[in-house]
């Protein structure tokens, strides 16, 4: 059994699967798969995959339009060695047309953030570089989870000063909310304050663009510094595993067929490619230097 933990670099280790956002907030973490598994095997045993293919996640109440087509299943961006499932999105292999090249360029630019996450984690917590210290897989898993929790706390206390927040605030609907709360977390030495809502939804207030939100957020910050309130951030009930499943086994089979549909994946990717091609001036602008954007 010890051989199953041998990674491709001939050392022993475990595999970490993570989902993160632009500000490196970790939304999903699956750690503990033996090191000899490749990414596909890890994904096939991760709780995220099991939830998606059983229809428990994600919620389907948000539809979005791409190139004139309406989709309801959101997707994850990943690199190109996964199966063609409808909830995964990766670059075109061997792009030949200009549209596909532009899509690949943007997809890799956006996906770069999750590559950055692992570098940031190991730079910040050097114990992730020497994971075998306790010689127990259970302790490895626990330690990495604790590291990720500390990392999320770090992000929460510092995210107001992030560059991505400034970009977000300059967006079309960003409003003055994010820029109004900028600056007091970096400069003043008062590090006890967290985001306006104290939680991962800290940027949510800026979307509504209201000054009242900002004022309420500041009041909440003064009242209760430094706590994520579990009540206001209650996770969705959809995460619960209901036995038997809520919609019956037919719903589970439908979700299984829908999320693993290759044709749906190809359609989605073609539509996103067209969408990116249509918006290429706007979406590629942050990634080009001044000399490129003539």
């Amino acid at each position, binding site marked *: 059994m010890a051989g199953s933990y041998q990674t491709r670099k001939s050392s022993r280790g475990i595999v970490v699967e993570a989902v993160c956002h632009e500000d490196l907030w970790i939304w999903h973490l699956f750690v503990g798969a033996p090191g000899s598994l490749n990414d596909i095997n890890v*994904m096939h045993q991760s709780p995220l995959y099991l939830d998606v293919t059983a229809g428990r996640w994600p919620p389907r109440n948000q539809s979005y339009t791409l190139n004139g087509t309406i989709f309801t299943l959101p997707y994850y961006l990943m690199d190109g060695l996964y199966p063609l499932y409808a909830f995964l999105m990766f670059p075109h292999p061997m792009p030949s047309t200009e549209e596909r090249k532009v899509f690949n360029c943007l997809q890799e630019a956006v996906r770069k953030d999750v590559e950055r996450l692992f570098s940031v984690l190991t730079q910040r917590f050097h114990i992730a570089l020497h994971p075998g210290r306790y010689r127990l897989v259970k302790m490895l898993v626990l330690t990495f989870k604790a590291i990720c*929790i500390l990392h999320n*706390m770090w992000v929460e206390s510092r995210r107001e000063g992030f560059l991505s927040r400034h970009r977000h605030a300059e967006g079309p609907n960003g409003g003055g909310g994010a820029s109004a709360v900028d600056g007091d977390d970096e400069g003043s030495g008062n590090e006890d304050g967290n985001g306006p809502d104290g939680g991962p939804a800290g940027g949510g207030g800026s979307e509504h663009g209201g000054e009242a939100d900002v004022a309420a957020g500041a009041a909440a910050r003064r009242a209760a510094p430094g706590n994520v309130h579990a009540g206001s951030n209650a996770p969705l009930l959809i995460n619960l595993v209901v036995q038997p499943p809520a919609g019956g086994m037919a719903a589970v089979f439908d979700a299984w067929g829908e999320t693993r549909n290759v044709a749906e994946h190809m359609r989605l990717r073609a539509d996103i490619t067209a969408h990116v091609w249509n918006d290429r001036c706007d979406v590629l602008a942050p990634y080009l230097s001044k000399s490129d954007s003539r």
Partner: protein
Amino acid sequence: MHDFETRFRVPRAVFQRVYSEVKNPPFFWRCINATGCPQAHLVQKVVAAFRMLMYGEAADRADEYVRLSRSTILFSVKCLVACIVSKWESTFLRRPNNAELMTVLYRNAERGFPGGMGLLDCSH
């Protein structure tokens, strides 16, 4: 303000939060031993454990700094890790709720991927 962070590699807010939480496990209580002397203080144990997590240093390296033995530091790291995970795993490592998912979707749509709800990757 960054002096704390250069030493401990973690913002003061995070350290305070962890510190105020780990008072609860009995291992971290300061007790009186058989000779009547007080044992190591909570700050010593937490700082040693943090240094081990942040710098990845050997367990007996912090001896010169906080004057704890190797086994105490190892045990305090285990206690700290278990305490953090049991306390905050449901808060900080969870799926987004509806409002947060909306935020993520909106931001990804702004970046050119409407419907993208995250970036997924594996690391070995």
